[in-house]
């Protein structure tokens, strides 16, 4: 009986060992995690500082091209050709991200979104002429992303031409603090799709925009922002300038085939669109947008974000100084 109540020496030692190890584990974990400085409790991991530079070496006289014509497929092909061809920008085996403006779940004819013909043609050029390995398309739209890609016709264009759509899934955003920026600090940015490619091409249409004056290629990068990005509207010119600092694309395409002259950037009726039959491609976003402004009967001087971007040497609003290459595609569609 007595022996039953008493613990054996072996059991006792084993128990001490187990208790000792557990207690030591707790203590050492506490030591490891101990933080005496309350400020350090809140300092987040340093966020990313932006994207790498996707631009290619400048070639004099091939910085901006302006092609007039009604058929987007033809004009965009010509515009890229005049910049030196797609192979100037995209090397064989490279991956390319197209960033169109697909903000709204509306059909292409409304003109609120980048036209699928442009997507199809650029994808084709990248694959066939530049021998690119893979083309991706992404945007963080305002409406439901899947609906936007579908209704705008861009999903169909992508499927047909072999480009892959990257929906702006929550886990593709990273916190970015852009150097020298006031607004893009610790802000969620659609980071992963850009981080994984070699080249980035921005594609936008010329649209009226009551707050900023005009929505073109610089404003198009708004679609890379996540979070409560509507807060940036209170300082719209600053955010557009910062977006231009954030993304240094390989080149941009500005579609002025039909310019949205009223009710932008959503539009909605045929009367909001005016035929201007112009396609612009360029390596200098500011110059491209400065020309685009003229399609809306605006002067570059009237758009503060253009002026401020120029002051920061992000580009020039004097597109004429870049000696644009002009061409004309005859015939209607």
């Amino acid at each position, binding site marked *: 009986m007595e022996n039953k109540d008493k613990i054996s020496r072996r059991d006792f030692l084993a128990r001490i060992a187990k208790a000792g190890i557990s207690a030591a584990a707790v203590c050492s974990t506490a030591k490891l995690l101990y933080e005496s400085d309350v400020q350090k409790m809140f300092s987040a991991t340093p966020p990313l500082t932006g994207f790498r530079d996707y631009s290619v070496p400048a070639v004099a006289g091939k910085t901006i091209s302006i092609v007039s014509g009604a058929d987007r497929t033809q004009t965009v092909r010509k515009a890229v050709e005049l910049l030196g061809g797609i192979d100037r920008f995209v090397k064989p085996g490279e991956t390319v991200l197209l960033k169109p403006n697909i903000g709204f779940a509306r059909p292409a004819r409304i003109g609120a979104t980048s036209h699928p013909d442009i997507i199809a043609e650029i994808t084709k050029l990248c694959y066939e002429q530049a021998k690119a390995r893979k083309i991706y398309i992404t945007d963080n739209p305002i409406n439901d992303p899947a609906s936007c890609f579908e209704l705008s016709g861009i999903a169909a264009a992508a499927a047909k031409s072999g480009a892959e759509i990257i929906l702006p899934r929550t886990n593709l955003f990273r916190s970015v603090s852009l150097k020298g920026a006031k607004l893009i600090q610790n802000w969620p940015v659609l980071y992963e799709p850009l981080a994984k490619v070699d080249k980035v091409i921005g594609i936008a249409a010329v649209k009226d925009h*009551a707050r900023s004056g005009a929505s073109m290629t610089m404003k198009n990068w708004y679609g890379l922002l996540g979070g409560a990005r509507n807060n940036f509207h209170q300082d719209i010119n600053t955010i557009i300038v910062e977006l231009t600092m954030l993304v240094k694309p390989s080149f941009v395409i500005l579609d002025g085939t039909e310019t949205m002259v009223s009710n932008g950037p959503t539009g909605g*009726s045929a009367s909001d669109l005016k035929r201007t039959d112009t396609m612009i491609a360029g390596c200098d976003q500011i110059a491209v947008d400065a020309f685009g402004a003229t399609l809306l009967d605006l002067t570059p001087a009237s758009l503060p974000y253009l002026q401020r971007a120029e002051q920061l040497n992000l580009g020039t609003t004097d597109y004429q100084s870049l000696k644009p290459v002009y061409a004309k595609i005859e015939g209607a569609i």
Partner: protein
Amino acid sequence: MKITTARRISQIFFFTLFIWLCVVTTLGAKFTQLSGWLVNIFLHLDPLAALATVFSTHRLYAPLVWSVLIIVLTIVIGRFFCGFICPFGALHQFISYLAHKNKTTKQLVELHKYRKGQNIKYYILIAFLVIAALPGLQNIQTGLLDPIPLFTRTVNILLLPIIDNPVNVLSATDRLYKTAPLVLSVFLIFILLNFVLPRFFCQFICPLGALFGILNRTSIWRINRNSKCTDCKLCNKNCQGSCQPSETVKLSECLLCFNCLDDCKFDAIDFNTASSNAVQSEPDLSRRGVLAAAFTGLLAMPAFKLIASPNSDGIIRPPGALNEKEFAKRCIKCGQCMRLCPTNVIQPSGIENGLTNLWTPTMNNRTGSSGCQLDCVACGYICPTAAIRPMTLAEKLGKGNFADKGPVKIGTACFDRAKCLPWAFNIPCIVCQENCPVSPKAIYTRLVYANVIDATIKVKSINRDTIYLDDGTLSPNRFATGDYYCLITSGLQNIRRKIVSNSSDAITISGENIIDAVRPGSVQIQIELQQPYVDPQKCIGCGICQHECPVSGSGAVIVTALGQTREK
């Protein structure tokens, strides 16, 4: 193959099918999306959904005709739906199996004996049907407990988001449903009740089961005992409906699980055309109980009217929702519209809109991606009972044949000027105007120049486009955002010039040589504001303005039910 094995295969098949159909209720043309799957088939096979809407509307909505198949089969062969098809029943059976698998035979026999309380489900059914049928009330509440809408809702707004939100496979953005916790508690309670008694929900609560229990009294084949019985009671051991096959079988409770056939060691259980004396074909209902249930339903009418008026009373519903009176006759709270809505704007109501509206679809523009998407009519096509009626895009937008009717109006946006940034705080914004999808826009702006409160500035001198200040206290580039102006008074003339940049003691303005004549004095800094207004004639109440408004809380532009088409 044993019939119980066939039953299990059938249950697994229909459960999997049910979950799959919930998964593919995602807008899109891929195989894993809507693309043509009969995603409403379980709801349309549901006789209670059909019967309740027939009671309230006196019509059988076309796709609900599928339920006739189940009704006829139940009349002929009994409650096979409960035993072989019902996905919610299958889930309960599986949980019950886990909960009680270590019990002894004696305990199991005790667990599965018939209990008088199983009547409750009939009284629930009667109360629901009275509520549905009563003139003046005609309100469908069956969806609260009808297992098919209940489970559909649970999967749609609770289980799928829980699984999908961390990985974003079904939806690129997280799906949020504000009353999901209540759905969770109901679901958990019914799941946990299986630990008290097996298939508790099916035996005590399920109004659909009760309906089957009333319908199966003339079923041609029944479970019954023959003379080989040794009265060992083993047949009760796994009886899913607790219909006590060891005694006179209570036919109304028999779920056709066929476990008794399996468990009987003496071949004493038959499934045959037994005489009506061998079984009890009517449920154990007392006249008093039935009257009490009917009376409860009757009293529900004045009770509900205390807390929910029969008109819309400010509830904002998806486009195509019928007027509130007709809507209440049809909505079974299944959550299909909330699941399919691409923007997640359709939200299950809480009790803030009245008890009767719990889990019915309302619009919460502050959730989801962007209010009601203009070119979308998905909710009307998914609604299994046409509480939200199908409508073409042309009708929604008021185009083509509907041009003279104008667009369907969900409500009207109203500005809260005490919160709106340009109105209340002199901060430029108009995200609402930008996103207004109507053309011409229903939100328009008027330009005003507001004096910046601490910025009347003494001028030292003016040279071309630069104004030099008396003291150097400005923070550099404070006024360089492109929204600030200098108001320079020159004689009787006011000249307003945009500020390009400023240093601590100088302001650069746009344009040159325009103020040569101005003598030094003071200038007023102003901010250019576009103050937004709603044009109620054009506003369709889509709510994207409210969604995009940067003011936290409910936003400074709020969609109200004002002018909604459905009440016209």
